[in-house]
């Protein structure tokens, strides 16, 4: 069994690498054949053509595309993603500055989504058919149909402008340095509350919907009735039997969601002016910063594949049948 698991994992690893390579090559080709010149930004018309050529040379854009692609692959194999045009720094260190925020922010949001989704689903399934169950059901459908940018802008209007409770943008206040450690934490928290709500509401609705449907199905299953007839307490049934049996599909959804979150919450970051991967990638695209675009996509792709892998591992851990299915 163990050997088979390792074998299937390696198989998966290899296909993941192939997929990533395919993705980067696709992006590389698109970039080289897109209209516009990334060096244009750094060259003024007064500059002599010789110097202009030098700028191009320093970006490595003077060689034929095939040669560039070769260089790119060689550099990639050594873990070098190149030097960002705008920041004049290695791409890795630029991403290193933005990734921690995105990681913390998206993990926080992910935890909120999962736990609130689970809590609400359990809360409403226990009161199945009551008005509160119906209300949460309807409400989650409405929240799901609300685009995050509408939520974000309205939250800013309500809480930052009308009630003046939370700051509307940024990550810290101007006098951030003067606070004590806990004051600084509180400052971060007050800046992050609105973005977290904006980012999480949709996800909570999705998780709630998936979980409630599955829980409903499991609650009506024969084995649950059987357990009840044996006199097992409701609490134990839910904890030991119902949740593990109905959580499977949600974990796959959670894997996809985590990947999307980790690759950068673009809309939320734009509304609240937060320094995350999403805005970094967009600025790279709009500034035609080729190495940074490839770097951002690479990191996002790796994170998406990893989070899907984690979701599959968790599923396999919970349900041995799925493990067998995956190995085959």
């Amino acid at each position: 069994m163990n050997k088979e698991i390792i074998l299937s994992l390696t198989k998966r690893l290899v296909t993941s690498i192939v997929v990533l390579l395919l993705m980067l090559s696709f992006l590389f080709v698109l970039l080289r054949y897109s209209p516009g010149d990334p060096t244009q930004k750094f060259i003024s018309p007064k500059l002599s053509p010789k110097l202009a050529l030098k700028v191009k040379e320093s970006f490595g854009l003077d060689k034929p595309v095939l040669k560039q692609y070769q260089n790119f692959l060689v550099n990639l194999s050594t873990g070098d993603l190149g030097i960002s045009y705008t920041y004049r720094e290695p791409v890795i260190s630029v991403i290193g500055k933005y990734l921690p925020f995105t990681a913390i922010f998206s993990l926080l949001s992910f935890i909120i989504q999962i736990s609130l989704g689970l809590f609400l689903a359990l809360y409403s399934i226990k009161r199945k058919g009551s008005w509160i169950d119906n209300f949460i059901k309807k409400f989650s459908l409405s929240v799901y149909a609300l685009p995050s940018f509408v939520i974000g802008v309205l939250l800013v209007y309500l809480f930052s402008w009308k009630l003046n409770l939370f700051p509307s943008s940024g990550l810290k206040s101007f006098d951030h340095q003067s606070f004590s450690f806990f004051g600084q934490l509180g400052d971060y928290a007050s800046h992050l509350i609105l973005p977290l709500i904006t980012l999480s509401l949709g996800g909570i609705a999705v998780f709630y919907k998936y979980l409630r449907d599955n829980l409903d199905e499991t609650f009506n299953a024969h084995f649950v009735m059987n357990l009840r007839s044996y006199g097992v307490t409701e609490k134990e049934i839910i904890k030991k039997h119902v949740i593990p049996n109905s959580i499977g599909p949600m974990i796959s959804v959670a894997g996809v969601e985590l990947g999307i979150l980790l690759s950068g919450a673009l809309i939320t970051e734009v509304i609240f002016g937060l320094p995350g991967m999403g805005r970094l990638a967009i600025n790279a695209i709009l500034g035609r910063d080729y190495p940074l675009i490839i770097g951002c996509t690479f990191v996002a792709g790796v994170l998406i594949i990893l989070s899907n892998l984690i979701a599959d591992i968790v599923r396999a851990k919970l349900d041995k049948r799925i493990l067998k299915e995956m190995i085959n």
Partner: protein
Amino acid sequence: MKIKLWHFIILILGVIILLNVGMLVNSIEMLWLFLVLLFSDFKHANTQINISIIDYLISTFLIIIIPVFILIYNKQIKILQDKLTFIFAIMTLLLAVTIFAPLTASSNPNFQKDLRVTKLLTPFSTVQKLFLKKNEIKQENNLDYFILKKDEVIKKSFSQDFIFVNSVKTSGSDVIYIQKNKEIKIEKDKILFVEGKPLIESKTFILGTDQYGRDILSRLIYGTRLSLFIGLGAVIVSFFIGIILGFIAGYAGGFFDSLLNRFTEMFLAFPILFLIIFIIAMFDSSVFSIILVLGASGWMSLFKIVRAEVIKLKTKDFFITAKLIGLSNYKLLTKEVLPNIISPVVVNLVFLYGNVILAEAALSFLGLGAGNNYPSWGGMIQAGQSYITIAWWMIVFPGLMLFITLLTANELGRKIEHHFNSRIII
């Protein structure tokens, strides 16, 4: 008596017709004049025709034809006999407003004039329209008749015929009008008089105006058009990509299958919004390319469904028989595969439709939409962000439209899913 869908459709269309009787008559007259022009002066007719004229004529034609058609054929078309539900009502309303945008929108979405008066008006605020004297145009030939009629029918983005004012006073030989606390004199002979009084109409902006004094309701209506159109186009593109690739992967198997699977995995591993933004920012941001890009980024789930179903179908007897008879691949796909997988595909497409509309709105919210020629919901919300402290209506109404549309799309998808599944169970 049950209210059926077709009753509601007739009601909506009837209301639109009643509100626009004058315009419809003018529009038909315009069509007549155009036909006259076409046969008498082909060269000029050719230069006069453009998209907006065609739009108006089609709207006029459809609003007369559709009610007649429904009244005659409502027994034959099954869906028209369904009970009216909330979703159907919203859908009908959205579609009617969208298709007949020239009739339902009270002004051109880009119409702006007298900013001092019309800028950032609250919903239901009223301003006065003071009509000015028009220069008499000589009516000599068919072309002049046509152009005059055209100006009467088509709502233009600019007009010299009137000015927006807050109030008007007449004192002696001059007329004084007030534009935002500023009194301005105007000579009497510049103003259009009817029965000794200056002609004044009041105009109500039901949903207010934006920072350039444009009517938000009209912009919303034309924005609906854009959103629904982009959604439809992108879904069709996704449909074709997903069906064809899924069929090839499932039917051919082997090398093609694994190649296409890797290809799909690649798209799934892309942060898809980045890919869309990347292509739109780098290449082109016309409506057509937005449709293509959104379509090309949403086919993955469809591919998976079709591939799995084709692999299942491949071993069925009827499929093997059809193949042995010698049906071509195209026939196999359209006659054997599609009818068998249509239900999951339709459900998927409806959900995809909602996602595409959302993605388009998000794109234009980020300022990467189809440009400023067309109003779009996301773009309106983005513009409203700067005026959030003084003009909430600039954000709330487009947000509400988006919300209603997405809710309807999701609900429709769920209904269709339920419909198909319940039939399978029975």
